[in-house]
């Protein structure tokens, strides 16, 4: 996990507008914004992106079940 977080931090430092780290084992998501700290979300079925990605959402329940 620490290697994956390092990767997410590198994407952020290199200008990624938004990063999502999906953690199927915990059915959790870490949301990495364009800058600043990441936020962990748990127990949500639908993950909505920031307004910059209007209309983008992920059906997490579907992904966890896949």
């Amino acid at each position: 996990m620490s290697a994956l977080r390092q990767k997410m931090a590198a994407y952020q430092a290199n200008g990624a507008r938004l990063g999502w780290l999906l953690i199927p084992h915990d059915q959790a998501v870490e949301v990495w914004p364009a800058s600043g700290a990441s936020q962990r979300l748990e127990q949500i079925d639908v993950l909505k992106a920031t307004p910059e990605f209007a209309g983008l959402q992920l059906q997490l329940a579907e992904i966890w079940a896949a």
Partner: protein
Amino acid sequence: MTLTTSPATTHTAAPVSLDALPPLRLPPGLRLTPEQFELVCAENRDAVLELAADGRVIAITPTGSETSGRNSDLLFQLQTFAKSSGGWKVFESSGGFRLPDGSIVSPDASLVRLERWQALSPEQRRSLGA
């Protein structure tokens, strides 16, 4: 945007692939330029490799079937979004992105604004895009 899925921490039944590649052995002190890295990738089409900002080559372990199945559902959802809203291009994990710090990475899935993709030259699109 980039998406990364962590592999499952436990595998009760690890899938066995008969054509699995033996793990790539890399000398610990090896450092490559992005250009050298591209040549290595061109000679090893089946290897999944990334280049760290300091020039280290990182061999990515192939994912298990579980992770692969989830990734394909993830890509399907992103593709559905990209097609309905327009203006986006979806990339899966075999695409390498050259980042400003010199690293070359392959997120499990990425969305790139169409105008940024279109701004690349055909040569840049064929190789590892910016």
